[in-house]
């Protein structure tokens, strides 16, 4: 038992803990609240520890941990979102996730954004609906592959691709609005 315990400690220290900062960054952007983000990361590590025997050493610990965190967040989110008269979020997503929708490019000039502060960009990202900011965080910030994202979120790769495309367009649109309001540029007509 002690030997098993030591092995589990090694896995935890060497394969799980190094992803702590990335998990906290993800949790922070999901919740936009430092205390809630820390709680979520703690819950993730506690769960990972409890199920450490089902983790195969040397496999994709980062994706496994992100999946645990994302599920914990969704569970909390669903509990809080169960309000009468609220928009049915799943319906909204299903509508916006259609894979066969044409690939429209939001033609933005990135130079407009370059002067923006990190806080402003973070705010624009955090204002996106949760499932859209999730794909941006996983792909653009954490560098997960489409396959890994598909496993973490539990949706098809085709849906990952279209959701990512829409999310980027939504963010560009939001950033353009911010840039205009903050006086970095004049709003285009």
């Amino acid at each position, binding site marked *: 038992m002690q030997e098993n315990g030591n092995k589990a400690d090694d896995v935890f*220290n060497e394969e799980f803990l190094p992803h702590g900062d990335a998990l906290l960054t993800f949790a922070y952007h999901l919740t936009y609240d430092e205390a809630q983000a820390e709680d979520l990361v703690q819950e993730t590590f506690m769960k990972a520890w409890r199920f*450490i025997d089902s983790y195969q050493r040397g496999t994709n610990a980062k994706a496994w941990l992100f999946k645990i965190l994302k599920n914990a967040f969704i569970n909390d989110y669903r509990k809080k979102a169960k309000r009468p008269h609220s928009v049915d979020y799943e319906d909204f997503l299903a509508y916006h996730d259609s894979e066969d929708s044409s690939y429209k490019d939001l033609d933005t000039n990135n130079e407009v954004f370059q002067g923006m502060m990190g806080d402003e960009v973070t705010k624009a990202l955090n204002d996106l609906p949760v499932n859209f900011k999730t794909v941006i965080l996983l792909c653009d910030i954490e560098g997960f592959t489409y396959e890994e994202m598909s496993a973490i979120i539990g949706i098809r790769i085709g849906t990952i691709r279209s959701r990512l495309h829409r999310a980027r367009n939504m963010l560009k649109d939001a950033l353009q609005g911010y840039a205009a309001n903050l006086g970095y540029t004049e709003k285009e007509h």
Partner: protein
Amino acid sequence: MGIRIPGRHNTNCRCTDERVEMALDGALSRKEQERFLQEVKLCAYCSEKYEREKSFKQFLCNKVSRKALSPSFINSLKEKIGKQPGHGRFIN
């Protein structure tokens, strides 16, 4: 700022907006990626789109704030885990 006039899409070009994003996200095979990078150079529209999407991805990566766990958080986490049954005492 003015109105940006995009380059023209070469009629022989097989790149699509979707493929541009896949190339940037590392979702093409090595062979496909090599072919894409050759093809994209020949099309003003696609090379412009590729550069624009690349710089947007880089911009996000640079600007979105990152967080780091504090040593006190890690210590308290290890303490809590050490109290969990099943795997013996947690060794640092």
